[in-house]
C-alpha cells in the first residue's frame, strides 16, 4: 500500500471539491432544456420543413395584424371592450414575438452576431419598447414588414434549390446516358469487327481462277457476307448473302447463317440441296424472325461449269470476255430462315475463258443519292460492261468508287458487298 494516509481535513476539502457534483442534475436539466430549445429552434426557425414555413407564415400574419390594429385603435370612439381586446391581443403578439426572438438567439451559432444583425435588431426593436417603456411601439413593427423581403429571399432560395436539384439530376442522367451510349457504341464496334473477321481473307488458289471481294459496312451495320468454301472434290463454293435488318441482331444471324452454310456445303455438293438444308437449320432456331438472301454457286475450276441456286438474292451478272453482260437467271427459292421445307432448284451455267462472275448485294443497286434516286441495276451493268476487262480487284474498286460517288453525301443505309471472279482454264 503506497497510498499516503488521508487526513480528515483533506477529506473535507475533497467533499467541497465534489460540490459541483451536487449540481450535476441541475446542469443535466439545463442541458436538456438547451437541447429542447435547439431542437425547437431547428424545427421552427432554422430548417426548411413544413413547420418552419408554417411558423414563418404565422409570424407574418401577426406582423400584419399588429400593424392593422394600429389603424383600428386610431378610430375615434372605439368601444372599450374593443380597446381591451386589442390590448390583450397586443400582449399575446409580443409574447409570441419574444418567444420567436429567443428561439432565434438560441438557434444562432454566433448569438452576438445575431443580436446585432439587421434582423436581430429589428426583432428586438419590435418588442423591447413594450417591456422597457411600457409604451406602445407598434409603429416600430412596421420595420418587421421587412421580413416580407426575407420571405422573398426564402422563396428564391427554394427555387434555386429546386433548379439546382433538377440540374444535378439531369447531369447524372446525361452521364448515365452517355455511358450507355459509349457502351453501345463499343458493342457495335465489336459486332462490326466480328462481321469483318468472319469474311474470308483470300480466295483459294487455283490455276486460272482469281477473285476479289469487298464489303463496305453501312453506318448502322448490316448483315452482308461473302464466303469462299473449299469443297472436298476440289470445287470451290462461292457465297454472297444479305441478312434482313441491321445492327447486332443482323450480325449474329449473319454469323449463324455463314457457319451453317459453310458446314453444310461440305456435305451437300448440290447448291440447291445445300441451301435447303441451311434454310431448315436456320428456321429451326430463329428467335428474331430474321432471314437472309443467299446466292450460292459451286465452280468446277477445271471445266468452268458453274452450278448455282438462289435463295431470294439479286441474281449475279456474268460478263463475257467480249464485254456483254448477262444475268444469272433461273427460278430461285424463298429467302432463307423465313419458312422451313423450301426448295431451291439448282441451275447450271458454263463459264468461258476470260468470263467474269459478278456477285453483289442490294446495297450496291439500292444505294440512294441525296436526291433519293436509286443507283440501280443499269448503272451497275454499265460499269461491269465498260470496266470489267481488267483484274477482279480493279473491277471491285471501280464499282465501289462509282457507288460512293453516286451516293455523295447521302448516308449509306445498307452494306455494300461485291465479289468478282475470273475464270480461265488451268
Amino acid at each position, binding site marked *: 500500500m503506497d497510498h499516503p494516509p488521508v487526513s480528515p481535513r483533506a477529506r473535507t476539502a475533497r467533499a467541497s471539491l465534489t460540490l459541483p457534483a451536487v449540481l450535476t442534475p441541475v446542469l443535466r436539466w439545463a442541458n436538456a432544456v438547451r437541447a429542447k430549445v435547439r431542437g425547437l429552434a431547428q424545427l421552427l426557425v432554422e430548417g426548411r420543413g413544413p413547420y418552419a414555413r408554417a411558423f414563418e407564415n404565422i409570424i407574418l400574419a401577426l406582423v400584419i395584424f399588429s400593424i392593422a390594429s394600429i389603424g383600428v385603435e386610431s378610430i375615434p370612439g372605439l368601444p372599450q371592450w374593443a380597446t381591451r381586446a386589442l390590448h390583450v391581443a397586443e400582449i399575446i403578439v409580443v409574447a409570441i414575438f419574444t418567444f420567436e426572438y429567443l428561439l432565434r438567439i438560441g438557434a444562432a451559432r454566433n448569438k452576438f452576431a445575431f443580436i446585432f444583425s439587421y434582423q436581430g435588431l429589428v426583432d428586438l426593436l419590435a418588442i423591447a419598447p413594450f417591456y422597457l417603456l411600457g409604451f406602445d411601439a407598434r409603429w416600430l413593427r412596421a420595420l418587421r414588414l421587412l421580413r416580407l423581403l426575407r420571405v422573398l429571399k426564402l422563396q428564391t432560395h427554394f427555387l434555386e434549390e429546386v433548379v439546382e436539384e433538377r440540374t444535378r439530376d439531369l447531369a447524372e442522367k446525361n452521364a448515365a446516358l452517355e455511358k450507355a451510349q459509349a457502351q453501345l457504341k463499343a458493342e457495335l464496334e465489336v459486332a462490326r469487327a466480328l462481321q469483318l473477321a468472319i469474311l474470308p481473307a483470300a480466295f483459294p488458289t487455283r490455276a486460272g481462277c482469281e477473285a476479289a471481294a469487298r464489303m463496305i459496312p453501312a453506318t448502322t451495320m448490316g448483315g452482308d457476307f461473302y464466303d469462299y468454301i473449299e469443297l472436298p472434290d476440289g470445287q470451290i463454293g462461292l457465297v454472297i448473302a444479305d441478312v*434482313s435488318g*441491321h445492327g447486332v441482331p443482323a450480325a449474329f444471324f449473319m454469323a449463324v447463317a455463314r457457319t451453317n452454310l459453310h458446314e453444310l456445303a461440305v456435305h451437300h455438293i448440290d447448291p440447291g440441296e445445300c441451301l435447303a438444308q441451311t434454310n431448315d437449320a436456320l428456321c429451326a432456331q430463329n428467335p428474331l424472325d430474321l*432471314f437472309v438472301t443467299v446466292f450460292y454457286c459451286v465452280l468446277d475450276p477445271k471445266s468452268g461449269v458453274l452450278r448455282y441456286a438462289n435463295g431470294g438474292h*439479286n441474281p449475279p451478272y456474268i460478263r463475257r470476255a467480249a464485254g456483254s453482260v448477262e444475268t444469272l437467271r433461273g427460278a430461285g*427459292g424463298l429467302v432463307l430462315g*423465313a419458312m422451313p421445307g423450301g426448295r431451291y432448284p439448282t441451275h447450271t451455267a458454263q463459264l468461258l475463258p476470260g468470263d467474269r462472275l459478278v456477285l453483289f448485294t442490294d446495297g450496291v443497286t*439500292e444505294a440512294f443519292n441525296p436526291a433519293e434516286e436509286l443507283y440501280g441495276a443499269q448503272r451497275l451493268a454499265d460499269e461491269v460492261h465498260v470496266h470489267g476487262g481488267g483484274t477482279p480487284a480493279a473491277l471491285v474498286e471501280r464499282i465501289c468508287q462509282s457507288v460512293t460517288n453516286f451516293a455523295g453525301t447521302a448516308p449509306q*443505309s445498307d452494306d455494300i458487298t461485291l465479289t468478282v471472279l475470273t475464270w480461265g482454264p488451268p
Partner: protein
Amino acid sequence: MNLRIETIGEVSCVVPVGRLDFDAAPGFQEALERLLGGAGKPPAAVIIDGTGLEYVSSAGLRAFLLGARAAQRSGVAFALCALQPAVREVFELSGFSRIIPVHADRASALAQTQPGRA
C-alpha cells in the same frame, strides 16, 4: 413513310406511301400487328395496296413476312396488290410473292381474296 388504313366492308386496306426501309419497318409492322392481333375483332382480310409504295428494303420484307404469319395465325386472308414494278421485282426475287398472294390491282385483290383463308 405514311400509312393509311381504309375499311371496305370487312376488309382492311393498308396503304403505305413512301419508302419502307429499316427506319419505317417497325412502324409498319406495328400497324399490321395492331390490325391483326389488336383488341377489336380482326378484319376478314388485310390487303396491302402498294400504289404509293416506292421502295421495300429487306427490313420491310421482314415486316411483310411477320404480317403474313400473324394473319395466318388469326385466320385472316393477307394479300398485296398494285405493286410498283421495282417493288414487285423485290417480292419476286426474294420469293415472297410465292408465300404472299400478289394481285394486279385492288379490285382483283378484293374479288379474289377469300376472307378467312390466308
